[in-house]
């Protein structure tokens, strides 16, 4: 009985660990995905918290309104159906290439650079070279 309970606990812990990895993963790709899903959900503050300090400063206070407009636009496209990402990490910088597919079938492709600030990946603006 004790053995069976131990196996069950171990199995439960393994499942939670796997679930935890996907839910709380804070890698560059995950941050970009969170950004899109936060914008879709209208969670402007959550989206803004994923930006680097300087990016927030550059966009200024009016960024909230701009993000709110994107929430409306995403809804018009039928919401986000899926987000495919590829990432490359070099030290404390990373680049994520993404393809967002919307409910109406339209897609949005792009790249986003991230930097580590206080141990967390934060999205930043970069020049398209």
């Amino acid at each position: 009985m004790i053995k069976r309970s131990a196996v069950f606990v171990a199995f439960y812990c393994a499942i939670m660990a796997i679930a935890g990895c996907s839910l709380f993963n804070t890698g560059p790709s995950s941050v970009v995905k969170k950004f899109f899903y936060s914008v879709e959900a209208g969670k402007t503050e959550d989206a803004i918290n994923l930006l680097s300090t300087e990016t927030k400063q550059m966009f200024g206070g009016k960024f909230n309104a701009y993000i709110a407009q994107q929430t409306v636009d995403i809804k018009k496209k039928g919401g986000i159906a899926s987000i495919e990402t590829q990432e490359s990490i070099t030290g404390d910088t990373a680049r994520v290439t993404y393809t967002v597919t919307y409910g109406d079938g339209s897609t949005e492709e792009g790249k986003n650079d991230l930097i580590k600030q206080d141990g967390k990946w934060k999205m930043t603006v970069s020049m398209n070279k």
Partner: protein
Amino acid sequence: MQLIIRYWFLCVSVCFLVGSSDCASFVRNTGNIVDEESIKSGDIVFQRGLNALSRFVVSLDDGSVYSHVGIVYKSSVGTFVIHILPDNDGVTDAVVQIEAISDFLSPHNTSLYAIYRYYDECSNVSEQAAASAYFLFCDKRGYDFQFDYRDHERLYCTELVWHAYKNANIDLIDGRFEHVNFPFYKKRYILVSGLLKSEYLKLVMKNSIKRSF
């Protein structure tokens, strides 16, 4: 002696016009700034600031060591720079501003600067551009956080300079806009490096500012 009195009067006039309460610092800083006599209306002043945002802007624009730009406007009372910056607090609506060039290039907020001029000094293009910029200042145009160069009701710093010259029928970047990487920002942008590369501009002077305070 007469020259000194005239110079002092000019300084006081400039401080009064721009509402500066720090006339002493204006006079003190003149040792570091450019000779105003050698600057013309319509000259373009590139500046590198000292704060984190300036470093960030420079870091994302490989082709430039400058983070900000404005256009010179000369009047009978002094030499000014017309420019626009985002609001600091995220609440107030930043608008096009006019600032004495000594303040614009103050060692308190500038580490590097360069001044460029429209190549054909015999034409009145520069004066037209300066007049256009002055109109944008008088019209209190706001800062464009969407960075949309097609919307002239709101402007960002490079767009202000570009738009002022566009009104004088000169496209400083010849339609060569840049793209940036950020979700939802799919527009075309005018970067500082784009203006620096302009074939219509020639370098007049550049310098680094000594911080002696």
